[in-house]
């Protein structure tokens, strides 16, 4: 049963991340996901200090606010003429520093482990269960991530066309009357929400890895957005299952193994993709010149 819950949690995280990751990759904002998932740390710490409990709702709220703040700061610096990479670098390191300081100054009062936030411990998911009306209904993380995934599916499903246009051609989208900025913040809000919902149970490496790597793999395999999302989710799920097996065999970090497997799948796609793969492209060029 433990295996089932762990894999289910991982698949939920990777599916949520994979869907959002596709839009991030297309908008060339891959590292914004990395930035957000680090910059929500002060939000978590403040929510923790303020509410005095590990209540997920407060943490979710605090972290989402800080995620959006991050995006806002990055946007303002860019509007001030700074390049996007520098704005990201300045903002998220500063916020992360604030988070680390808050946690280390209050280390006696909080039992929030820095290591735990970064790596998470997906193996403990099954013990933290939710009880509804006296009955045990399964791990809390599964419920939280399930709701997050549902929110993502609903939002992306409702505004698929708008998100698609914003991803490929923001100028055209703006000309069509789509509130581009609103959709930008909506997407970033979803990323913040996902990163914090996953944080507690799986840590930030898995989130960042699953945001970027499966989506990039899918990007090598297809030119259609709908298929890209589907492939991305499949790659994420395959990495989750493969990573669990690898971690089981090696007795090592589950989240780390999942990201490592995603990396292996990416390299395979890079080499073997029918249209964009290095090997086939090389072969085609050889064939064409002959």
């Amino acid at each position, binding site marked *: 049963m433990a295996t089932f819950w762990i894999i289910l949690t991982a698949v939920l995280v990777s599916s949520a991340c994979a869907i959002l990751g596709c839009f991030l*990759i297309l908008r*060339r*904002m*891959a*590292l914004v*996901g*990395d930035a957000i998932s*680090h910059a929500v740390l002060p939000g978590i710490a403040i929510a923790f200090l303020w509410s005095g409990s590990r209540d997920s709702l407060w943490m979710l709220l605090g972290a989402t606010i800080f995620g959006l703040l991050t995006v806002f700061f990055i946007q303002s*610096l860019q509007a*001030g*003429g*700074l*390049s996007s*990479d*520098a704005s*990201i*670098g*300045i903002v998220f*390191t*500063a916020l*992360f*520093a*604030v988070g*680390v*300081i808050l946690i*280390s*100054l209050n*280390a006696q009062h909080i039992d929030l482990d*820095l*290591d735990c936030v*970064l*790596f998470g411990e997906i193996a403990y998911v099954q013990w933290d269960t939710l009880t509804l009306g006296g009955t045990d209904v399964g791990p809390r993380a599964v419920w939280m991530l399930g709701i997050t995934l549902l929110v993502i599916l609903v939002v992306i499903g409702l505004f698929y066309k708008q998100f698609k246009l914003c991803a490929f051609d923001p100028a055209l989208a703006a000309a069509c009357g789509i509130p581009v900025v609103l959709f930008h913040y909506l997407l970033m809000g979803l990323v913040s929400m996902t990163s914090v919902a996953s944080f507690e149970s799986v840590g930030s*490496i898995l989130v*960042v*890895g699953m*945001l*970027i*790597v499966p989506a*990039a793999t899918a*990007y*090598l395999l297809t030119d259609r957005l709908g298929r890209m999302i589907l492939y991305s989710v499949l790659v994420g799920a395959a990495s989750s299952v493969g990573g669990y097996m690898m*971690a089981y065999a*090696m*007795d*090592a*970090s589950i*989240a*780390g*193994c*999942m*990201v*490592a497997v*995603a*990396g292996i799948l*990416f390299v395979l796609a*890079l080499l073997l993709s029918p249209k*964009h793969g*290095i090997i086939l492209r090389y072969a085609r060029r050889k064939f064409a010149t002959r």
Partner: protein
Amino acid sequence: MGNWILSILSDPNTRWILLGCLLLGFSSGIIGSFTFLRRQSLMGDTLAHAALPGICIAFMLTETKSVGLFLFGALVAGIIATFGISWITRYSRIKQDAAMGIVLTVFFGIGVVMLTRIQHGASGSQSGLDKYLFGQAASMVMTDVYVMGGVCLVLLIACLVWFKEFKLVSFDPGFARGMGLPVAMLEQLILLLTVIAVVAGIQAVGVVLVAALLVTPAAAARCWTDSLALMVVLAGIFGALSGATGTIFSTFVPNLPTGPVTVLAATILFAGSALLAPRRGLLARRLRSMQAKSAYLREERATLQTLSAQGTQQERGEL
């Protein structure tokens, strides 16, 4: 105040930490200027994460916790990561930011796997390895400062020797190629120097925050000047200042970690620069635009007046 600083400096341990952080800030500020101009500011973050498997492999192979060996392992991993990034961007449709993200997460994931293997392994104690994640400036000793000094010297000499080449490559790689400069090699050289700075910084400020030392002082320096030479020097000074501030504050308040305070000091310097710098600062720009607006309005009013005067003259003429 002065007394208080003197009392801190009289502690030899703190003196070493202060010197180390100063040197670290200085050298990362200098090399950070080039990565900043080349729009590779997040390279520091990527390389710092990517160094983790190198550190772990160095430990697994030798089973000793020696700083020199760790640095070597991190250096090798960092170099492999830079090659990986340029390889992915060159041979596929993946853009640089995604390539950096992929290398960052996958290398770090592998590093964490190794870290847990070490933890579960027979050799047991991995304590001391985890300090590379969050950094522990307070554990800096004399030899670390010597290493930092060496790194600083290497970076300084390299930047002095190849200043012209780096300048060209940073501003106009196409032109540099046209002049016959080995652009790809110079770019790799800048990345190598970045790796060295990052690796030296990891054990003081940790994996995530090392990126800040590369970006933030350089961005702050950029606000003040348009000359590269001045910018490099300023970035070095800003970095060193942040390092010193971080050390002094963290010795003053118990439980305050040095790395994050250093980063916040750099951020405050940046915010101040972005606000107050004479030409590119926010206040100066606001003032200029207000002046331009009022000048425009004055001109507009004057034109309107002459036009209306002409109009009344014409009306009179017609009558």
